[in-house]
């Protein structure tokens, strides 16, 4: 679960997030064009997510939702504009930024096919720099919260797509980020899996975190968002 981060949580030299900064996640005038000289897929996009925000971005296939999420995650740079989490950008302070943000990419990639669920989670916790003495507890907590107990020692390549998605979601929440970016998180999930996801989001928001969700226009979800925005022709507009 997310929580207000303190020096004790990090136990290293970087300062705690700037709680005086207005927004957990802030995108300012973000633009991105995949082909230079052509119409940008994102055109001076502004977006603020406050503490406890649950925002959905919808749009047609290929409209730029995933590009926006990848920029917010710090995976790729915008051509123009700035992304910040509590006042820090992924370019200036990548390690610090990645301690605060967790990204669930669309699809089923990002798993080691021949590692078991438990080893995958352990690996995820350690590269997320979870304090070593907390790793085992966090892994077991993730296994419990996302109902992965029966699968804990099963290799990923022997799991169904829905089970893999549940593992990917567990890996997203395990580091206890402040901001979670979910790109089409319902892919392959059954009803129970979706409920586990919603509960994890609620815990994050209850602790002051923020969540950005993106999915294709027309996707049905029972989850209630504060705001739903449409991405259309490079601009975010209210749905």
């Amino acid at each position: 679960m997310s929580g207000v981060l303190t020096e004790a949580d990090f136990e290293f030299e970087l300062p705690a997030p700037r709680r005086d900064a207005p927004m957990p996640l802030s995108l300012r005038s973000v633009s991105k064009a995949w082909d230079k000289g052509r119409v940008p897929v994102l055109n001076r996009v502004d977006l603020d997510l406050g503490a406890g925000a649950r925002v959905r971005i919808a749009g047609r296939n290929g409209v730029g939702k995933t590009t926006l999420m990848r920029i917010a995650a710090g995976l790729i740079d915008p051509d123009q504009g700035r992304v910040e989490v509590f006042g820090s950008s992924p370019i200036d302070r990548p390690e610090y930024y990645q301690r605060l943000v967790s990204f669930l990419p669309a699809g089923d990639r990002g798993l080691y096919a021949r590692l078991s669920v438990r080893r995958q989670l352990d690996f995820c916790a350690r590269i997320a720099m979870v304090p070593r003495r907390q790793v085992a507890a966090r892994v077991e907590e993730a296994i419990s919260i996302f109902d992965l107990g029966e699968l804990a020692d099963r290799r990923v390549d022997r799991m169904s797509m829905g089970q893999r998605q549940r593992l990917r979601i567990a890996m997203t929440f395990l580091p206890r980020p402040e901001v979670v970016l979910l790109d089409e998180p319902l892919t392959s999930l059954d009803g129970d899996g979706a409920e586990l996801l919603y509960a994890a989001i609620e815990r994050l928001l209850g602790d002051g975190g923020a969540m950005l969700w993106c999915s294709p226009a027309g996707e049905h979800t029972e989850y209630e968002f504060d705001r739903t925005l449409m991405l259309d022709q490079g601009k975010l507009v209210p749905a």
Partner: protein
Amino acid sequence: MTAFGENASAFFAVIRRDYYVFLSYRTRLVSQALTSVFSLTLFYYVSRLVHVEGFTTPDRYFGFVVVGIALIGVLYSCFSVSETIRQELVAGTFERLLLSPFGGVRGAVATAIFPLAYAFLMSSITLAVGALVFGLELHWSTVPLAVPALVLALLAFLPFGLFFTALTIATKQANVGASWIIALLSIVGGLYFPIALLPAWAQLASELQPFTPATELLRNLLVDAPMEHSVGGALAKIVGFAEILMPLSLYALYRAIRLGQRRGTIIEY
């Protein structure tokens, strides 16, 4: 825990990940050990068949070439990191490393450790089989010194793999030309035959990379082969190459990742 402790934990997590993946392929160790035995058998009989200039007995040449066979595996393992990172790009797991506080550069360096450790194990097996089955005479009093010498040599070899990893991230093609470079290095590095047999221009090339002094030093420590240069001179060369190449290769890797992030091609594979 300190930042150092967290970094060490992440570093070992990557090594452990590679170890578990390796274990999941149950026949790999046996098949690679057999490959090593076949190479030893081949060169054992070649050493009996052919008189190589500069070697007084077939056993001297066999000792020379066994160390070369042991080192070629280490050389290959240095270059294997770029292929592994290429697979990670395809699987989307490199993205996970990039989006972690541990980061892509440290992740790539950590990814190189298990293959190097495994190559070290295979080299030890090669030498042990050479000694036990083919009568290779190891120079036991200096064999322990070969371990730190090899670690030092790895610091000089690894940058080659990291340069290729940077190239792989930039071009999405694994090991472009790596097999040629490994073949070239095995020749000018004197892995299979003395560089004195090479033409003058090739002998000059043998001075421009760390494999020649490392091979010469390890041969001296393992099988008491005579050295053309002094031990101190060989060590100085290896340290010099490591000091220059390691920071350069890390910078190249960092720039390749940043270039991919700036252009958006880091997501491609």
